[in-house]
Every structure is written in structure tokens, then in C-alpha cells.
């Protein structure tokens, strides 16, 4: 998981230059990771000690001069370098008070930027695309600078990367709507030009970010439509590839959920191999406010952390040593973050029951055992789809479909979605499902009569949806009391937030049984519940306990009369299922969702006392069932595990402990629970004793006493 911590303001920001660039020209790392160099467009360079939030040095240029590029710190010579008025390179040291008196050199061509990578000589990038090392340039400042770029080609972005002693200057240019990427490598000096693929609908990339990983450069760029693409360049130039223009292959890394809007400004920066920080995109569940800083996991396409940024957002975002630097409004904020190594388990919260996963893998081939196929409904749709199929030869594009969704009639939309899912290749489908689901949900929210349940089910079945792609879906289903959809979503979504889980739980518990029984549910889960409740009578007739285990009678229950049956034995299986079959099946799904204790606990407090008691009763019921080994005989793919049940009991008791302690109606339940747990503890204590004696047996066998004399047989091989 990634997390954004509480940020703080480092400094104010001057008036913005334009819509995408704030008053800050650039932020560069200073002499160590705690110092940054902030270059203001209003003639000043300031060094801040980040942890103290204090400036430690500031230099200004004279009236009439302007700083034209971000100042950098040359780690090799411990000097600061900045360019003023495009052509004057100034170099000064920490203890120089006035920049004016520092060394300066006028070069023959306009400098775009000075780029500095850690532990290497700074590199000067000219506006014309030429690249020089700073020291060689300063040795003869008036040396001629060649033109690399074409007439109207403009450098939009540039960076320098260093890995394995290989220094690479990357810069992207724009020329009449076409975008290029240049990679200048040193030793030997080579310049490779790549064409950035563009689609007509896509405008210019608004933000770039590059990182070295292994022997490749991973370049990430964000388009205004919210698409985040990644391209991979080799760190070292191949000998042959130096000539000509190469197209740069790209892959879609992430599609920010923008709906149909476009970003005005925004920036993305790579944090590590799985995480990307994006500023300026809206939070998927917070409407259309775009002033969010989000960390996305690109592996799982999930939102990991977010933070609202007050004020205007620019296309500027820097990241140095675990801190993000975000200019917004009139200030520059420093926001520490942390990205833990992402595993599926960490991304999804608590690890899901692995047993059921493996089972479903092995059994998925059989159609009848398909875990969430709505068999009763699909035939009708299938037939209709097949008729449609002939009439509409070419499949719709996503955009067309989305247009249809906005306006079309409910049934048509369902059919079209089904059609689309059937015909679209898997890779495209992955991207499209999210958009479709978002669109369907937003229409359903506005149009009360529109609720394409089948379409949602079909979308879920693709398994490309997850909670963070379309957060509204579950709440919509709750509003519509579509428990079937809820059930399927619970089965499929790995990333349901604890708050939503609790809301669903509350909805399930508060809905009367009679209402839920009519709902069409995943049959298998219902069968499981049926067997579970039936088993109880069968077992009781057999006489209950297996394996000869007879729980010791509890002190309170001791009665000498043989007719002690009259007294309620908390361990007997006379407890009937406190909820209906369907409700039980739904609760089972809740039990199996992934969650983390801490976030769940506050939300659980929302449950009312009757709800808690019913739920607890149900948990106790299923726990009793489980402890009598009843569930082992039921063949089912998804069953709550023993530990899940116990975890839920614990957390529920934690959340409502005080309430349960005083509520009179809970008394019997709690005491039952207590007795049962006590008997279990006793059982385990007995088992512990047995273990001890068994161990002694084992030990005694090992250290056999030979006595004073024995005659043995040994064999040597």
C-alpha cells in the first residue's frame, strides 16, 4: 500500500506564468536530500532545508535580468549553476552572498536548461537541441553551437538520467502537432530521435516522467484525456539504432477515471515500479473536483492514496527522496509519501481465502459449477443477442456504445453491452469495461427507471471491474436492493473499502428476510446454506459428537438428574439458523471479503443493536456448525473459513462490547458464546496436556536408558 502523509507548505509561489506552469521554474535537489533548490520565475533562487521548512540561502539577479532556467546544484564541484537572460551562465558557491559577483560566462546560443544528475557533471541543453557538458562549455563559452532541431521544433520537456555510469539526456519536442523524443547519450555522443505515437484525438502530452529501471528507461507521459502511457527505451544505445527516426512503442499504463472531461492541467511522476503519483485528476468517488493528488498502483490499477489540494493545480510535480513537491494555488506543498512493495495481498487488504481461490481455478472449466453465472437469466439474452448479432455486423466502438448508453432504452443498452463484451477482444475489453460501467452507473443514478442489471452482471463477469474502477456500482446496487449484484460484486471485487462492506452488511441485516428470500441469488451459496441448516437435524439424530469427544459438563450446567436434556446445552446443535437462507448466503459473502481490522472497526459501530445481535447469532450458529465439522461434508467452492468467522466475531465484539454488555436481549447470546468458547478452551487445554504426555513418550524413546550394561547390535555400512 502507498500512503500520503500530512504535508506542509514550503514556500509561497509567485504569480503563475501560464495555465500549466506556476511561478516556480523548477525544483532541484540541493547538496543533500534534505535540501532543495527552488527557482522562482521572479528572479530568485532559494535553497530550503526541507525538514526545517526554512530557507537557508537565497540569491537574486539584478533588476532587468531574468532567470531563464531552473538553478541546479553541481554535486561534483559543490556549486550552484543558473542561466540568466538565456545566454549567461552563472556559477556560484554556497558562501557567495551576491550572485552578481559570482562567475559568469556568456555563451553563443540560447540555453534551455542546465541539467544535473547526482555525481556527474551538469549538462547544458540548448534551445536548438544541442547538448554540452558544463565544464567543456565554460572552458570556451563562445564555441559554436550546432542546430539539431528543425525550424519550428520546440523543446517541451527535458530531463537527464544516470544509471550504470551512463548519462542520458532526454527531451521531447513538438513540431506542428507532431511529437518527438530525443535521447542524447554520451560516450560516444549519440542522438536518437523517436516519434511519439499520437492519435488524432489525443492532444499533446502534458506531463512526462522518466525513471531508470534495470537497463531500460521507463518514460511515462500523461495526456489531457487522462491516459497514462509508458514507453521503454534502452539505457544504452544500440549500435545500429543511431540512424533515422524510430517510432516509440507505448503501452497504456493507466486510464484515469475522468468521465468525458479532459484535464486542464495535471502532472504525473513515477514513484516506483508500481506506483505513480498524479496531480490534477479527480478522485474517482469525489465527483468532478480535479484538485486531487493521487497515488495509483499501475499493476493493479487501483487508487492507493489521495489528498485534496486546495487552489489551482499546475502541470508541475516533483518527487525527491520520498517527498512530493506540489505547487498549488499560491503555495508549494511538500507531501511525504510511502510506497510499500506492492503485493496483491497488500493491495487488497487482508489476504483472501486462498483455498477457495485454488478451488475455483481447478473447477472453472465446468459450466455448471461456474460460480457466478446467472443461468436463469442468460438464455433469454443470449438468444436475443444472437439475433442482433446478425443484424449488426460490425461491433460498436466504445465511444459509440457509451453514446448509446447515455440515451438508449434500457433493454437495448443491455443487449448492446452484452454484444460488445462478446465481440471485443480481451485487451480492449479491459479498458472499456470501466468506462461502460461508469457510464451505466451514472445514467442509473440520474434516471430512476434505468437499471440494467444484466449489463452490470455481464460486466462483472468479465472480471475486469474492480471497486476502484467503478465505486458507485455497489452503492447503486444497495440503493436498488439488488442483492444478487451485490453478491457477485463481493465475490469478484478484491478492493471493497471497509466502509462500503459495512454499509452493505447493514443493508443486508436491515432488510427483512421475507424480502431477501425472493431475491435471485447465486445458487451454490444458497445450496451451501441449505445443507448447513439441514445438517443440523441429521447430526442431532445421530447423537451429535464425533470422535468420542464428550465435552466436559460445565459447572453451571451440572445437574444430577438424567433428564438434563431439558436444560439448554449451549454446545448442542439445537440452535436454528437465526437468518433466512438467502440472508445467510449474503452474509457469507460479507464474511469472505478482504478487510483490515482497524479501518473496519469504526464502521461496524454503525450497526444497530438488533442487527449486531442477529449477525452475532448467525456467526455463532455457523461457528457451532463449523466446530462440529459440518461444513466439511458440503461441497462448495466458496465457504467462509473458520478463521474468518472467528475474526468477525472478535471484531464485532470489539466494536459493540459495551452495548452488548448492557443490552438485555444480548445477554443470552453472549453467555452462550462465552460458554462455548470456554468449552473450546478447555478442550484445547486438554489437548495441550495430551501433547505434553505424547512428547514425553517421544522423548523417552529417544533417550533410552541403557543402564549399566547392554548388548547391542550395530551395523556399519
Amino acid at each position: 500500500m502507498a500512503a500520503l502523509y500530512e504535508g506542509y507548505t514550503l514556500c509561497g509561489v509567485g504569480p503563475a506564468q501560464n495555465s500549466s506552469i506556476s511561478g516556480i521554474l523548477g525544483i532541484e535537489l540541493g547538496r543533500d536530500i534534505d535540501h532543495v533548490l527552488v527557482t522562482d520565475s521572479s528572479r530568485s533562487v532559494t535553497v530550503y532545508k526541507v525538514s526545517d521548512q526554512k530557507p537557508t540561502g537565497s540569491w537574486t539577479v539584478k533588476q532587468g535580468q531574468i532567470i531563464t532556467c531552473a538553478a541546479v546544484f553541481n554535486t561534483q564541484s559543490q556549486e550552484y549553476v543558473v542561466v540568466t537572460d538565456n545566454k549567461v551562465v552563472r556559477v556560484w558557491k554556497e558562501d557567495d552572498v551576491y550572485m552578481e559577483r559570482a562567475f559568469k560566462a556568456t555563451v553563443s546560443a540560447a540555453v534551455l536548461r542546465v541539467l544535473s544528475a547526482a555525481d556527474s557533471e551538469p549538462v547544458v541543453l540548448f534551445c536548438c537541441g544541442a547538448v554540452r557538458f558544463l565544464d567543456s562549455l565554460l572552458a570556451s563559452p563562445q564555441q559554436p553551437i550546432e542546430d539539431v532541431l528543425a525550424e519550428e521544433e520546440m523543446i517541451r520537456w527535458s530531463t537527464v538520467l544516470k544509471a550504470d555510469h551512463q548519462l542520458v539526456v532526454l527531451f521531447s519536442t513538438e513540431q506542428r502537432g507532431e511529437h518527438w523524443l530525443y535521447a542524447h547519450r554520451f560516450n560516444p555522443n549519440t542522438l536518437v530521435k523517436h516519434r511519439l505515437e499520437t492519435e488524432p484525438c489525443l492532444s499533446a502530452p502534458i506531463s512526462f516522467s522518466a525513471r531508470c529501471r534495470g537497463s531500460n528507461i521507463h518514460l511515462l507521459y500523461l495526456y489531457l484525456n487522462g491516459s497514462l502511457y509508458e514507453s521503454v527505451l534502452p539505457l544504452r544505445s544500440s549500435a545500429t539504432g543511431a540512424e533515422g527516426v524510430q517510432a516509440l512503442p507505448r503501452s497504456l499504463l493507466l486510464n484515469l477515471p475522468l468521465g468525458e472531461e479532459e484535464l486542464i492541467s495535471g502532472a504525473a511522476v513515477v514513484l516506483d515500479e508500481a506506483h505513480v503519483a498524479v496531480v490534477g485528476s479527480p478522485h474517482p468517488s469525489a465527483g468532478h473536483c480535479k484538485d486531487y493528488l493521487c497515488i495509483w498502483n499501475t499493476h493493479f490499477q487501483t487508487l492507493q492514496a489521495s489528498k485534496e489540494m486546495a487552489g489551482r493545480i499546475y502541470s508541475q510535480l516533483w518527487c525527491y527522496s520520498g517527498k512530493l513537491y506540489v505547487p498549488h494555488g499560491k503555495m508549494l506543498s511538500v507531501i511525504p509519501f510511502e510506497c510499500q512493495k506492492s503485493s496483491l495481498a497488500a493491495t487488497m487488504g487482508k489476504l483472501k481465502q486462498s483455498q477457495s481461490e485454488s478451488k475455483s481455478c481447478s473447477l472453472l472449466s465446468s459450466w455448471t459449477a461456474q460460480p457466478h453465472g446467472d443461468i436463469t437469466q442468460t438464455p433469454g439474452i443470449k438468444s436475443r443477442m444472437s439475433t442482433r448479432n446478425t443484424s449488426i455486423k460490425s461491433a460498436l466502438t466504445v465511444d459509440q456504445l457509451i453514446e448509446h448508453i447515455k440515451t438508449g432504452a434500457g433493454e437495448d443498452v443491455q443487449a448492446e453491452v452484452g454484444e460488445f463484451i462478446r465481440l471485443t477482444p480481451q485487451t480492449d475489453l479491459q479498458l472499456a469495461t470501466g468506462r461502460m460501467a461508469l457510464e451505466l452507473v451514472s445514467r442509473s443514478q440520474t434516471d430512476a427507471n434505468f437499471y440494467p442489471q444484466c449489463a452490470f452482471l455481464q460486466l462483472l463477469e468479465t472480471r475486469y471491474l474492480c471497486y476502484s474502477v467503478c465505486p458507485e456500482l455497489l452503492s447503486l446496487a444497495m440503493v436498488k436492493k439488488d442483492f444478487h449484484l451485490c453478491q457477485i460484486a463481493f465475490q469478484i471485487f478484491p478492493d471493497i473499502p471497509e466502509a462500503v462492506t459495512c454499509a452493505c452488511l447493514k443493508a443486508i441485516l436491515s432488510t427483512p428476510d421475507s424480502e431477501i428470500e425472493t431475491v435471485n441469488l447465486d445458487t451454490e451459496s444458497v445450496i451451501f446454506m441449505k445443507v448447513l441448516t439441514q445438517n443440523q437435524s441429521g447430526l442431532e439424530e445421530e447423537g451429535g459428537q464425533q470422535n468420542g469427544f464428550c465435552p466436559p459438563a460445565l459447572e453451571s450446567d451440572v445437574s444430577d438428574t438424567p433428564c438434563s436434556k431439558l436444560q439448554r446445552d449451549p454446545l448442542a446443535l439445537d440452535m436454528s439458523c437465526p437468518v433466512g437462507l438467502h440472508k445467510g448466503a449474503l452474509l457469507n459473502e460479507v464474511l469472505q471479503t478482504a478487510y483490515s481490522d482497524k479501518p473496519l472497526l469504526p464502521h461496524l459501530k454503525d450497526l444497530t443493536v438488533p442487527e449486531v445481535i442477529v449477525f452475532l447469532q448467525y456467526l455463532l450458529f455457523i461457528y457451532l456448525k463449523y466446530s462440529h465439522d459440518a461444513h466439511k461434508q458440503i461441497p462448495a467452492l466458496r465457504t467462509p473459513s473458520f478463521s474468518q468467522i472467528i475474526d468477525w466475531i472478535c471484531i464485532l465484539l470489539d466494536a459493540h462490547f459495551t452495548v452488548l454488555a448492557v443490552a438485555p436481549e444480548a445477554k443470552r447470546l453472549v453467555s452462550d458464546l462465552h460458554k462455548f468458547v470456554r468449552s473450546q478452551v478447555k478442550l484445547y487445554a486438554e489437548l495441550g496436556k495430551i501433547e505434553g504426555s505424547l512428547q514425553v513418550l517421544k522423548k523417552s524413546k529417544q533417550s533410552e536408558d541403557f543402564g549399566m550394561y547392554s548388548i547391542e547390535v550395530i551395523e556399519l555400512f
Partner: protein
Amino acid sequence: MGEFKVHRVRFFDYMPSGIRALAFNQHNERMAVARMDGTVEIFHCSDRFFQEKIIPGREQCGIEGLSWVGERLFSAGLNGEITEYDLTNQSVKYTIEAYGGPIWTITGNQQGTHLVVGCEDGTVKLFEVNEDKIQFERNLDRQKGRIISLSWHPSGSKIAAGMMDRIQVFDVETGHSIHRMLADRGVGTSRSKECMVWSVVYLSDGTIISGDSVGMVKMWNDHTGTLIKSHNVTKCDVLALSVSQNEDSLVVGTSEGFVVQFQFISMVLEKDDKEWVRTRTFRNHTHDVRAVAEITTAVVSGGMDTQLVVRPLLDKFEVKSSASALRKINFPHRSLVSCARKSGLMLFQYPGHLELWRLGESEGQGIPGSSLLVKRKPEKLLHLKVKGEDHIRCSAVSPCGEWIAYSTASSLRLYRLHCDNNNVSITKISKIPKVLSSASQLCFSSDSSHLFSASTQSSVHLVSLSQSGCKFVGTLKPKSGSHQAIHLLAASEDGKWLASANSDHEVHVYNLHTQKPHCTVPIYSSAVSAMAIHPTTNCLFMMHADQQMFEFSIEQKQYTDWSRLVQRKGLHDIWLGRDTPCLNVMFNPQNPSHVILHDTYMLCIIDQSLPLPDGKTQFYNQLTLKSLPKEQRRSHSHAFKVCKTFKDILCVELMSDQSLVVVERPLEDISTQLPAPIKQKKFAT
């Protein structure tokens, strides 16, 4: 490969004696160890602490102190006598009475000219060390109270003496006391108890270090007679101190069983003002540490728990080797058990008596790993007490079980045993030839017709045995001039050859038919710990203390091809890293290529027909081989077949019925017989 019936014997109640004193000789790297029972043992520090020499003790001799003067070793004890040892013949050279009551301490000066002893009557007696004896010179000023410890100033001009409640410094020249330093008594209840200064050390810079019964180690200035520094080391007594040769390290033995090291180091880096700082603590003993000594690379300590612990100082080693491993010596490096192979008898040698046992008998067959039903229990046939005060030096029972011989420092005795069914009787052979006054090692020929008795000057006396008695046949003398005592004898099965090994590492082979020396095995740098002559090939198989093995063909007077192969290929690291020497070599007549060896922890059969293990081979491969099918075993096996079923082995012998006798003495059994250690409060007890 082989199944063996093993008589696992644990009724040999061998009880080692506690260590009382240690003395290290820097020049020849020998460590002298004095035990409570008066035994003095010499260990060779650079030959893996092999126990080269054992001088058996006597009743009531109570050694308290041990001191080297040059190459000569002196001891003094509570019987009031000073003893010099004849290390060549491993015996007492002479004793003289000091006339001062019990002697508590003895120490010689570095110059090798004088010895001082501290007596019960409060005198410090100065002895001059002459060529062949010591001569009383004079008493230093007599003090009130006993002298417990003494230490010479390295210059030889001053002596520090530890007494009751004080330390006295003497000028040797005048004999007068220069300083008197009072040691504090303990606080509280121990206030009424005297403070015994158990040990003092006089350093060349004038510092006197004392260890006392209050548990303090104190540094004194001999110039002013003042206390410089005092360290509380233990709640009980500090019993022993020892300083290293260059006086930068001090080891302290305490009655709580741990050893503390102090080092003389500068507190500030690269400054010259050095101080004694407590640095390390070694906990290897369970009982009082009565003696410590710091040798070049290790701390040696011994005490009431009878084991000699060599704790290497790891900062003095650059590579990990057998020398850098902790070594605990529990058992003597001599066999205390001899077996009558043909009649199933065992002779156990105790310091003051011998026991003869008959092995039990089993019934039926058993699968490997199982115990058999004991049909007849082992039986103690004889308990033979030694006449006189001297302890037994060596003993032997003849292979036929008819003869028993033992020797003390003063006499050799031979007995004839008559066994008919349940009646056991012995007759002492009275007419023993005069030359057989004492033996350093005894051995019978395999047909029990001769007794070989190792005597002084590396000679071996030959005695023929018959129904009527014994007759001196002749003396075998080595060609070399070595006078060292013989500690191993090996006779060949066919009665033609006899091999002897002495402390100079010389191995001589004699032809018994001609009674002439036959040849000498090239001298190897390490001592011979065990040897035997092969019954069919007449090759002499020798094990050395450094775990090397040699096979020497007596007839061809050269090493065998197999021996050369072993030397060329080298032995496995695990084999070389074992820390106890092999104590017996046996041969299996049914399988001439097998050599059976044992040390304290294992029994090993070397199959000379199998390939030798190289460095990459799994050395302990018995479990692997066991799991393999029979036909694959051959390809996976190597020459060393090690059985680790038994531990704390004192002796292994192969009887003529192919059964093995393994005599174990579990260390737990020894420790249960020790007096209780100082009771220490443990948490929550």
C-alpha cells in the same frame, strides 16, 4: 559391510581427580597439571594438548603448588615436602622436607636459581636450585599466619606473599619485609571471616595483583604500598591468577566457575596511560576454578570439575583451525582398560585398585539398532587393592585371561588367575626378577607366553611366563640414545615383533626371535597416541595426536603404499578437526582390510580397500548409506565408516568372538559424583 555385537559397558566408575595447580613452561610449551590425588600430567600445548606424560600420585601427598624451574618441575604439598620430578622416566626424582609444616605454595624465579615455598608456620623458605638437587638457603622474615601465595618480582629481587588479611613484600637480599598491605575483609557477615589472599602476581613494573576470598582483584603499588584499583569480580572467592608472558593480560579463576580476563589497555585510543580493564568472561566450568594459566594463544583452566579447559583467545588466531577450537580434556590419553580378548575379561585400572570383570552373554539374534536380551549379567570377579601408597601406573591382563600385571612407581606385581566356574582365585607370583622393579607400560604377547615390561631408558624387559612362574629372558634396548619412558607397546600376533613408542615420538620395532632392534620408524612431529601390528601383514599402524595415520611395513621397513596414498591425498578436514586423540587400534581378523579405531566420541572402521574421502565428500555418510539400496552403497561409500552411537568412550576392544566391547563413562555420571558446586541464586528459584 559389517554387523557387530557390542557390549556397552558403563560400570567402570572411573573418577578423574580435580585439578589443583597448573604450570606452563614457555620454552618447551608444556603444561604441567597437578591433580588433587597427586598425579602430575604433562600436556604438550603445541601438539594438540596431547597428554605426554603421567606421573601417578600417592596417597596423602596433596600437591598445592607446581613450578617449573627451567626444564625441571617441582611441586610442594600439604605433607610439607618439596618434590622434584624425573620427567624422563615419569617418576618422582626425590622429595625433601621443608620443615615448615604444610606448604601452601611454591614458585621459582625467572632466573632459575631459586625456589621459594610458603609454609603454614609463616615462613617463606628460600631454596637454591643446584645441578641435581635443591638446597635450603634461608628463611625470610617470619610472619604471623600462614603464607598462602607467593610471587617473584621478575628481577628476582623481591617477593610478594599473600597471607591472611594482608600482603607482605619481602626484599630477597635482606630477607626483610618492605611493605605490608592490608586486604579488606568483606562486608556484613563475612566481616568476621579472615580475608585469604589466595593468589598474588608481581609484575615487572612493580604492580602487585592479588586475588582474595572476598572476591576482589586488587592492584597495588609496591613502591608506596597503596591500593591502585580494585575490581569486584565475584561474590565468592578469587582462587587463581595468571599473567601472560608480556604482562598485558591477566586471567582470574573464581570459585563460581568462571574465568575472567583483564587486559592492560589504554583507556583513550593511542594514549599511553594504560589500565587494567576487565574484558572477557569464560564460563566453562561448573565448579571452583582452582588453577588458571595463560599460554600464548589460549587460557587454560582447571578446577574441581576435573576437566582441563583450553579456551583459545580468538583474537590471536587468523584462521579457524583445530587450534582455535575450545578444547575440554576429560579423560586421560591412555587406556585405563585392558581386555582379555580370548576369555571375555576386562581389567579396569583405578588409582588405588584394579577390578576384573567378566562380560555378560546375550541370547538370540537382533536386528541392527536393537538391544539383545542379556542372558548372563557381567560379573565382577576381582577387586585387587594396591599395596603401599603409590598409585597404579599401568596394568594389563593377558589375552587368555590367566595373568594380571600392574606396576606402581616402586614395584611391579604379577598375578596368576585361576577360574573354574564360579571360583576365582589368584596367586601372586612371588619371584619376580629384580630388573622388573617398575614399568611404564606393560603388555602381554598374544599367546600369553611372554610379558613385556617397558623400563627406564626406553628399554623393554622380556619375561617368559609358565605354569611355574616367570623367567627373565632379556632386555631390548633401542639403538638411539633416547631415555624417554615408553608409553605404548604393541606385540604382533605371530609373536615375532614388538613395537614401542616413547615420549620423544620414537617408534622402535624389535625382533623378538633375535631380541635385537629391527628398525626405527621415521620420527614424526606429533606423538603416537595408539598403535598396533596387523595380524596378517605385520604392518605397524600408528595414530598420532594430530590425527594423522601411518602404516609401516615392518618386514620391508618402509611405509606401505596405502599410507603413502593417505599422505598424498590428505585426510578429510572433519577427521583432522576432531579434538580427542585415537586411543586404540584394532584389526578384524575376518576382514584384513579393516582397521578399527576409536576416540572419545566415535568408533571408526577404516576400510583400506575403499577410496579415501576427499574434501567434497560427505564424511559422516552412514545415514546416507543406510537409506540407499544395497547395490548402490558400494559406489557411495568411502574408507571411513564412523559410528557415533557411543560417546564418552574410554576404551573399545575387539574380542576374539568378533564382538566389540565399548567402555563408556558418561560425563553426566562423573558430574553427579562431584561435590556440589557453590550454590548460586538463579532467577525464580
